[in-house]
């Protein structure tokens, strides 16, 4: 047992912080909640790439750094703490690159990984469909072989990054005659292909982070298939473990946490700071406690990955825990701010740059995406505790 970070890890954390603080000073970005998914900046992503911070855990032979998942967690923890606009590379770095590494051909690795690592390949995720949410395996998008190509038809929903993505990861049915889990394949296709139409979905915060993707007879070469034809489900399930593994669930609205602490110290009521009110102190302390417990869940997940195991039950647990935390954080923040809590960033009266109402609205969606909390608890119960399905 050892709860310390190594000296190298502490130095790495400082390095990441210095970089981000410098970027903020230069006006390159302002810290936002959910910036990892909403705020995108190809320029910022290029700077991150120049430092070798995309593909940090990938083998050196493909341009990665061969570092540990704990190292990567340190990196992402700081990106989230500072609300950095990392959306361009986030998904490829978090889960798509790992999938290519695990299941791709040598040619695919050599083509895709360097592009991701250089901060040039921005991959949107095409998993959900109108009729396939939690029951993702019932997806209807079809990919039919045609000579050396596949022809893809169907519709994806909640695809992230419509405005900037240049690749789309998608899962499609390649064999409709077998059980639903056995006829699915993974593809990574270019976005600008004939037949691909992207339409933004305006979410509850007014943001266009997610999109519908219509695929109308999209012809893609066979080399877009990742891994085994019809073997995509198993690959996808592991990828979802990685998707759920990260700190963004706990720290998506961390800028609000910091702003809330500042707000309670600076706001006076009857001549006393709000932070001196015992009730408010207690609520804030409870948030700190819940945050620190969540952080340990996160590092446990990274340790599981460093042992070379997909963090199935552990990531399900940490993600369900963390999205509940961010919902409590948003609720406590907006309540403590009282009437002012409803003011959005545009208002001169808005406390904490209007982060609270944004976070209060946006956090409702995170306990749904990448496995609803209910699906995650099914995983904990059945795979983790061995409870029976019937």
């Amino acid at each position, binding site marked *: *047992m050892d709860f310390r970070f190594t000296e190298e890890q502490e130095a790495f954390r400082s390095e990441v912080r210095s970089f981000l603080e410098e970027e903020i000073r230069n006006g390159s970005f302002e810290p936002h909640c959910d910036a990892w998914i909403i705020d995108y900046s190809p320029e910022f992503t290029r700077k991150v790439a120049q430092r070798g911070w995309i593909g940090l855990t990938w083998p050196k032979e493909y341009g990665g750094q061969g570092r540990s998942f704990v190292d990567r967690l340190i990196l992402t923890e700081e990106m989230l703490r500072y609300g950095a606009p990392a959306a361009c590379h986030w998904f490829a770095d978090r889960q798509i690159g790992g999938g290519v590494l695990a299941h791709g051909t040598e040619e695919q690795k050599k083509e895709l990984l360097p592009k991701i690592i250089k901060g040039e390949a921005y991959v949107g995720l095409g998993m959900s469909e109108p009729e396939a949410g939690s029951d993702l395996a019932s997806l209807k998008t079809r990919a039919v072989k045609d000579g050396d190509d596949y022809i893809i038809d169907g519709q994806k929903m909640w695809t992230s990054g419509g405005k900037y993505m240049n690749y789309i990861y998608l899962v499609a049915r390649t064999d409709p005659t077998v059980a639903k889990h056995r006829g699915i394949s993974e593809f990574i296709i270019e976005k600008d292909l004939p037949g691909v139409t992207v339409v933004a979905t305006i979410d509850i915060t007014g943001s266009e982070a997610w999109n519908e993707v219509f695929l109308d007879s999209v012809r893609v070469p066979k080399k877009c298939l990742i891994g085994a034809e019809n073997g995509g489900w198993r690959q996808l399930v592991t990828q979802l473990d990685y998707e759920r593994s990260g700190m963004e669930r706990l720290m998506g609205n961390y800028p609000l946490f910091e702003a809330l602490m500042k707000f309670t110290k600076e706001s006076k009521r009857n001549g006393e700071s709000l932070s001196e009110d015992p009730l408010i*102190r207690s609520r804030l*302390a409870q948030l700190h406690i819940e945050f620190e417990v969540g952080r340990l869940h996160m590092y*446990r997940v990274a340790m599981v990955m460093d042992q070379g195991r997909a963090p199935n039950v552990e990531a399900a647990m940490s993600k369900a825990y963390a999205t509940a935390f961010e919902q409590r954080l948003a609720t406590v923040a907006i309540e403590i701010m009282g009437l002012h809590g409803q003011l959005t960033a545009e208002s001169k009266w808005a406390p904490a740059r209007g982060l609270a109402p944004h976070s209060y609205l946006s956090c409702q969606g995170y306990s749904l995406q990448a496995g609803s909390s209910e699906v995650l608890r099914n995983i904990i119960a059945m795979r*983790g*505790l061995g*409870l029976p399905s*019937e």
Partner: protein
Amino acid sequence: MDLSLSEEQEMLRKAARDFLTDKCPKTLVKEMEEDEKGYSPQLWQEMAELGWLGLAFPEKYGGSEMQFLDLLILLEEMGRACLPGPFFCTVVLGGLPILDIGSEEQKQEYLPQIADGKAIFTLALTEPSGRYDAAAVEVKAVADGDDYVITGTKLFVPDAHIADCLLCVARTDEQAAPEDGITLFLVDGKSPGIGYTMLKTIASDKLCEVVFDQVRVPKKNILGQLNHGWREVQKIIERAAVAKCCEMVGGMQQVLEMTVDYAKERKQYDRPIGSFQVIQHYCAHMATDVDGSRFCTYQAAWMLSEGLPCTKEAAIAKAWTGDAYRRVLALSHQIHGAIGVTMDHDLHFYTARAQAAAATLGDADFYREIVAREAGL
């Protein structure tokens, strides 16, 4: 970062679990709840022979020179087994403070007695106010020749009725600030003027009211420095709070396992109730609370073991684990149904102990205030 136990620690855990499964069945726990002493002297001797009582003491004081972390593994298993008796107060509240701040002479006298199972120790800290702050210490010790004379009432003192020696926290300077006039005394449990009354508690865990009526203690029995005891008391509370968390983590783990087993076996509507998603999700909530409690408890325990300052981490562990244990029990009761609220079932042992453990050594509100301070509020 590494959250796992070493091979040796896993072996110690297994040995402790095997021993307690064999020697501390729930029939013994029940019997000891009703027993006047509240512990089995025979089992106490066996634990001494296993080296458990002196586990964290240096060899020269009869100990096994293992780490504080190893002791916490034992405590976890004791929490799992609901081990009755004075282990916690003798070792955590008595022995470790003596090891920390005792004079060489005191260490040589008392620690081997503890390690050999010959003496039971406890800490007389809280008073009728039930608080853990310095101002709450009102029991007085007044110098008189070569002695101090202690007067006042201590409440919620564990196992005082069987203690050979009490560490008594007393006020020795009433003019100074509350934190600056407190001294620890080693008081012979059989001293004239000490009176014990057993308190009836939720967990039947032998907490006592102790009345000191002009109890004389020789000056050489001051533990640590005159008037500067409060800092040590805070350290004792912090360490004991983390140790209590370890007991709770062991108890929670056992409750989770009992509940999952029951959910797999119990059938209603012709299927195991554990196949219903509502029950599965309750179990998932429980597992999440158990893991979270374990992580924050281990973090604080590891820091203590390494001698690192951990006021915030200890506070997080005690606040979180006390709350989480009771959440786990509430769900466990819901899953067990009516059988879980009978004396025939084992669950009530944990339900009662969870509440006792959450309240002792600072409750969640107490530690939330510490976390608030540590977070800069």
